[in-house]
């Protein structure tokens, strides 16, 4: 208990100090701004800006004209996660004049390995706020506009109506948002720098740039929802999202300075295992494309969750498919678990990462591959005394599927399967908070 009190006192003190620091930094900022002004030796950039950006400006690829263009540019970054963080970091450093960041999520501990603008003391606060603080501290010469909001047709329409962005960066994590941003970019004639990553692979391209294709030209039909894996389930390595996010910043700068070699009509595949970049030649704009074609049928933003058959976020939507008598509450589970067979149906790698004592692992995929083998496993591991089996997983969704599907095969086996409601997440919340709620 005294440890808890000590923690709370420290947190309080840090919060107060932070507030104090913030105020002093704002004062310092204001003084700098006052002192700065326009440099008598250049019409657009200040003395500090010239020194600050000199290393990129003295290159023939950028030049002072390019730097001035960057200063006058407006970029919208959608999603300030694994891709948005590194992209924003490099664009702010490079002196893009106005960067708007939009995201609705709050910082979680499991974000920090890849979302490099957020730190431990930001957990629970909006990602946009934490990113704003870091970026503002990094570069006081530019304007960062933080927007805590869902990304949907309404919010995107509102943003694009109010501001003429030169480039939009797609750092989102789901299919519906990707189609939404594509259509918004085509309808408003803005290039879209699209990046994505999963596990050890990343992908990058620029859509709707000059006569290049848009996302719909290449992928007119959304993928079946069951083929889409999110980072929460598939995993992803920080440096992989980092590589793609940084490359998104690079392509953005290239678009802004009118480079002839923007990654349009091409698709870059990064394989972090083999350390290879593969550059795929794509087709031109499809004249029959529904949104960027010569006779488009999509002329305003539509309902993208409906179009894709999936939600515009990468959170798991909980299901409810078993009868109440086939479920047990987490507290009840905790009383029974020592004397009952508990089968944890998570993937083996997740089970090895953390598991409850005396539980057995038999993954959902393995069960669905061969239900007969699983039933033999149940026959061997249940006792004469108890034919009850408690089925457990991360959130209580896969376990429901197992109970529903396998129970129908158990008619002559006298075995009863029960779904552990809410899974290990519920266990972590209600029984023991030291069990990792990952």
């Amino acid at each position, binding site marked *: 208990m005294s440890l808890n009190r000590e923690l709370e006192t420290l947190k309080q003190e840090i919060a107060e100090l932070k507030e104090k620091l913030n105020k002093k930094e704002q004062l310092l900022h204001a003084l700098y701004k006052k002192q700065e002004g326009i440099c008598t030796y250049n019409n657009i950039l200040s003395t500090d800006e010239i020194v600050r950006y000199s290393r990129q400006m003295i290159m023939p690829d950028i030049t002072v004209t390019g730097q001035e263009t960057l200063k006058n540019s407006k970029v919208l970054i959608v999603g300030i996660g694994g891709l948005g963080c590194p992209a924003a970091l490099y664009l702010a450093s490079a002196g893009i004049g106005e960067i708007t960041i939009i995201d609705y999520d709050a910082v979680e501990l499991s974000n920090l390995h890849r979302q490099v603008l957020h730190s431990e003391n930001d957990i629970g606060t909006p990602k946009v706020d934490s990113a704003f603080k870091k970026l503002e501290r990094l570069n006081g010469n530019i304007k960062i506009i933080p927007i805590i909001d869902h990304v949907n047709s309404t919010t995107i329409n509102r943003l694009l109506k109010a501001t003429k962005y030169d480039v939009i960066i797609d*750092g989102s994590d789901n299919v519906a948002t990707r189609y939404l941003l594509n259509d918004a970019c085509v309808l408003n004639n803005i290039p879209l720098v699209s990046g994505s*990553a999963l596990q050890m692979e990343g*992908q990058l391209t620029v859509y709707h740039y000059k006569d290049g294709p848009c996302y719909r030209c290449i992928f007119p*039909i959304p993928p*079946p929802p*069951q083929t889409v894996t999110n980072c929460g389930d598939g995993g992803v390595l920080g440096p992989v999202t980092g590589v793609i996010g940084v490359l998104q910043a690079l392509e953005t700068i290239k678009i802004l300075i009118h480079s002839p070699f923007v990654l349009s009509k091409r698709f870059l595949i990064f394989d972090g295992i083999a350390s290879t970049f593969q550059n795929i030649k794509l087709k031109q704009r499809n004249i029959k494309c529904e949104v960027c074609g010569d006779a488009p049928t999509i002329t305003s933003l539509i309902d993208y969750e409906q179009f894709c058959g999936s939600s515009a976020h990468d959170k798991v939507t909980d299901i409810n498919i078993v009868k109440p008598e086939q479920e047990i509450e987490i507290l009840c589970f905790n009383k029974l678990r020592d004397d009952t067979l508990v089968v944890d149906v998570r993937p083996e790698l997740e089970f090895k990462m953390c598991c409850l004592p005396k539980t057995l692992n038999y993954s959902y995929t393995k069960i669905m591959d061969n239900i007969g083998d699983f039933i033999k496993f149940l026959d061997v591991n249940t006792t004469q005394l108890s034919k009850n089996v408690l089925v457990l997983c991360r959130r209580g969704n896969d376990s429901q599927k197992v109970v529903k599907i396998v129970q129908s095969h158990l008619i002559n086996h006298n075995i009863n399967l029960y779904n552990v409601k809410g899974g290990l997440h519920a266990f972590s919340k209600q029984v023991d908070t030291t069990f990792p709620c990952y």
Partner: protein
Amino acid sequence: MKITIQFGGGVHLLFGNIKLHEIDLPDREKHWTIGDLLLWMTDNLLQERPELFLQDKSVRPGILVIVNDTDWELLGCADYVIQPKDTIGFISTLHGG
């Protein structure tokens, strides 16, 4: 005819978890198109859930087919005639960030 098949973006999970396959297509009078290859792969390489790879006799939405670094749509899609030593890639798009 020896060719290489490459999987990316998770498609390899349907093909025994192997990303690169060196295969030898059986010799025959008629040439091999990618359309023929898709059927051959379904019979000889695909290990599970064909509906996650094929749909309406082509690849499912969200998979890019690449012939030697070029989108197959520039080469005639399923009608492209496979040449010896071609590398044919099946890459699923990723959506995470």
